[in-house]
């Protein structure tokens, strides 16, 4: 390799970013850029995988075969999303096994939303509509992220994500237009999920320590608060259309700004859940650990079988 000093490499790197030239795995990149991506993409991967758990809970209790098939397809998609993302993390030189072990040890985080329980069938609708809806809002700008493998994974993910939101909205709509009991179930579910959904966009801009650098590197294209506002603006009319009430006394359309004003988020709750004290944190991580431990024999058996076949082929 030619002798080039680090400042020159960094300058060239930023120049590529500024010119919207993607960074690919073997290209030179600042160590901090690599570490930021490893952290962000692995957290994203963990969220996809842990996100299967609240939904998996309802597969056997889906109200009919159509709903069950849809729910299974959605959960399978989320597994796929996790796999695309773990592969993207690996392109940065991270060890896949270690990446997962970091989730199990609590070192790595995942989206705080999945630490809330799915208590009723309406929650399956609410998760699709609000949680996948918020995820889409986060993920669409990531399709233009400066790191090639992450951006490409996001293109696939976004294509698959839109059915997730629609099936959820369909469930909620049907309940909202059903019997009084069904409508009450939908409303109660919205009451529980609304605020955690808004928290999915992360801490407010003034408390977000990574935002400025991530925007300079074009890993992020919008701030947390911008995306949150966008989510509120598109989602409130969707709730109104089906006769549900967003649980926020301060929610009001602001004619001057063209946006909805909304109430204060309970950041104490957010930080509590992030720190591991949400209703389901322990359960979620335990389920992932158990999946690894109890599935280990399958991995071992597959390895043994592959080795045996390779030997037989060679002899």
């Amino acid at each position, binding site marked *: 390799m030619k002798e080039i000093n680090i400042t020159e490499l960094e300058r060239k790197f930023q120049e590529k970013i500024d010119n919207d030239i993607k960074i690919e795995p073997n290209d030179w990149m600042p160590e901090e850029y690599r570490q930021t991506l490893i952290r962000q993409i692995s957290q994203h991967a963990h969220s996809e995988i842990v996100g299967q758990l609240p939904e998996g809970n309802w597969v056997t209790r889906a109200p009919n075969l159509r709903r069950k098939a849809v729910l299974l397809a959605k959960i399978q998609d989320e597994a*796929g999303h996790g796999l695309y993302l773990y592969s993207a993390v690996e392109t940065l030189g991270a060890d896949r096994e270690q990446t997962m072990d970091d989730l199990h040890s609590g070192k790595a985080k995942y989206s705080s939303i999945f630490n809330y329980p799915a208590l009723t069938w309406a929650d399956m609708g609410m998760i699709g509509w609000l949680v996948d809806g918020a995820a889409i809002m986060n993920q669409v700008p990531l399709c233009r992220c400066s790191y090639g493998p992450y951006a490409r994974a996001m293109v696939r993910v976004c294509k*698959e994500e839109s059915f997730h939101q629609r099936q959820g909205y369909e469930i909620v709509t049907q309940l909202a237009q059903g019997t009084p009991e069904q409508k009450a179930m939908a409303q109660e579910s919205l009451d529980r999920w609304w605020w955690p959904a808004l928290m999915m966009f992360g801490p407010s801009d003034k408390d977000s320590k990574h935002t400025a650098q991530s925007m300079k590197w074009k890993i992020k294209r919008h701030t947390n608060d911008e995306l949150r506002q966008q989510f509120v603006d598109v989602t409130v009319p969707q709730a109104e259309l089906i006769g549900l009430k967003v649980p926020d006394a301060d929610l009001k359309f602001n004619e001057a700004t063209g946006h909805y004003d909304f109430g204060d988020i309970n950041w104490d709750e957010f930080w509590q859940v992030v720190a591991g004290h949400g209703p389901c944190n322990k359960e979620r991580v335990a389920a992932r650990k158990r999946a690894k431990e109890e599935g280990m024999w399958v991995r071992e058996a597959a390895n043994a079988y592959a080795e045996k076949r390779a030997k037989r082929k060679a002899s």
Partner: protein
Amino acid sequence: MSKKEWPLWEVFIRSKQGLSHKHAGSLRAPDAEMAINNARDVYTRRSEGVSIWVVPSNEIVASDPSDSEELFEPSQTKVYRHPTFYDVPDGISHM
């Protein structure tokens, strides 16, 4: 208990007859057969493919990004390799 990781595979997919295989991503699997099965589940859930290739990632030989100037810059000065380099008189067609 051995902790051996399954090897990494690169997945290439032909989206329909008549098109070439294109890189879709990568995955881990114990052997080629499982790699194809997994690729089917991970990369073709919505009929994105009619044929799958899997290649062990460590078998791929790639050009070095630091060589890219030597490798690719010479062709940038050879604009005469493109048809648009040439003037065709007005009134000429089929060329």
